[in-house]
């Protein structure tokens, strides 16, 4: 299984993703520089967190026009698996690969904390190794992670079961106080209709080792690896 991790100017979690995949999960990983053309044979490409282009104008607005993105769009449109974490999620929304947008946290504060997430759908490469309703504990660290979509888009997301993760309390209930940023419908992560592109605000790469307080993040990477190895459960 070959992973790619794109580094944009201002990315800061690219090495976290690289190290977690390589050291904790024993995967083959290669960095991709944003100015290079997208080249290589990858099973999954990760857009990491950070502050690409200083978050100028809007988070992810300029990164989507980086040279590497042309090839990444083609890769995604032909079924390649793409994972966007935090700023990566924002870039995927800006580029139109995922629906909706991420705006300023409802409380205006940058949030840096552990959250509980409930797995809502499992018929995707990203969540195939998890159980529906399973709780994950991952960290969030962002200022603009409030997910927004217009009512029609939101309806489509629900109908097509594209909401993969929701912020919940320790009992698994999607309450307002469990929602760290005011996201609509407690949405923490969504996939595209074809289910090969997934974006989430929490950071699985920062939860791949008990030394870092938990390894629930590894479960997402392991799902992807299993799906790429053809060991995914048949789609429901």
């Amino acid at each position, binding site marked *: 299984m070959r992973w790619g991790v794109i580094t944009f100017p201002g990315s800061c979690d690219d090495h976290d993703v690289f190290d977690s995949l390589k050291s904790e999960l024993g995967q083959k990983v290669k960095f991709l520089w944003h100015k290079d053309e997208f080249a290589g044979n990858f099973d999954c490409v990760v857009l990491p967190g950070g502050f690409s282009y200083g978050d100028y*104008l*809007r988070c992810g*607005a*300029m990164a989507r*026009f980086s040279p590497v993105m042309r090839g990444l769009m083609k890769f995604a449109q032909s079924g390649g698996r793409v994972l966007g974490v935090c700023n990566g999620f924002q870039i995927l*929304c*800006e580029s139109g690969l995922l629906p*909706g*947008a991420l*705006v*300023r*946290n*409802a*409380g*205006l504060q940058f949030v840096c904390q552990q959250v509980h997430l409930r797995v809502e759908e499992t018929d995707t490469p990203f969540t195939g190794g998890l159980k529906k309703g399973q709780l994950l504990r991952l960290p969030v660290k962002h200022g603009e992670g*409030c997910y*927004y*979509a*217009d009512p029609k888009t939101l309806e489509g997301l629900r109908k097509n079961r594209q909401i993969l993760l929701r912020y919940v309390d320790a009992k698994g209930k999607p309450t307002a106080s469990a929602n760290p940023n*005011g996201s609509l419908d407690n949405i923490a992560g969504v996939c595209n209709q074809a289910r090969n592109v997934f974006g989430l605000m929490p950071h699985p790469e920062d939860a791949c080792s008990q030394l870092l307080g938990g390894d629930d993040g590894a479960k997402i990477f392991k799902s992807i690896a299993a799906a790429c190895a053809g060991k995914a459960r048949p789609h429901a």
Partner: protein
Amino acid sequence: MRVKIFISLKNGVLDPQGKAIERSLHTLGFDEVQDVRAGKYLELAVDAPSRPAAEARVREMCDKLLANTVIEDYRFELSDGDGD
């Protein structure tokens, strides 16, 4: 031609900044204030053969990069001359 571009959040999109500014104004005694919305303002100069040509280009810039039409509305004003 000089262009002034105003970008604002669409109605229905949460604007916590606008809300915080509104609360501050109320605290300062400006009780008459309501519906504060925070937005962006950009200025630029464009070289274009005509006003309609400039408008078309600016609209394209807004749709492509300057505004995210999923969450934002924009409007712009053109004025002749290359500035002050």
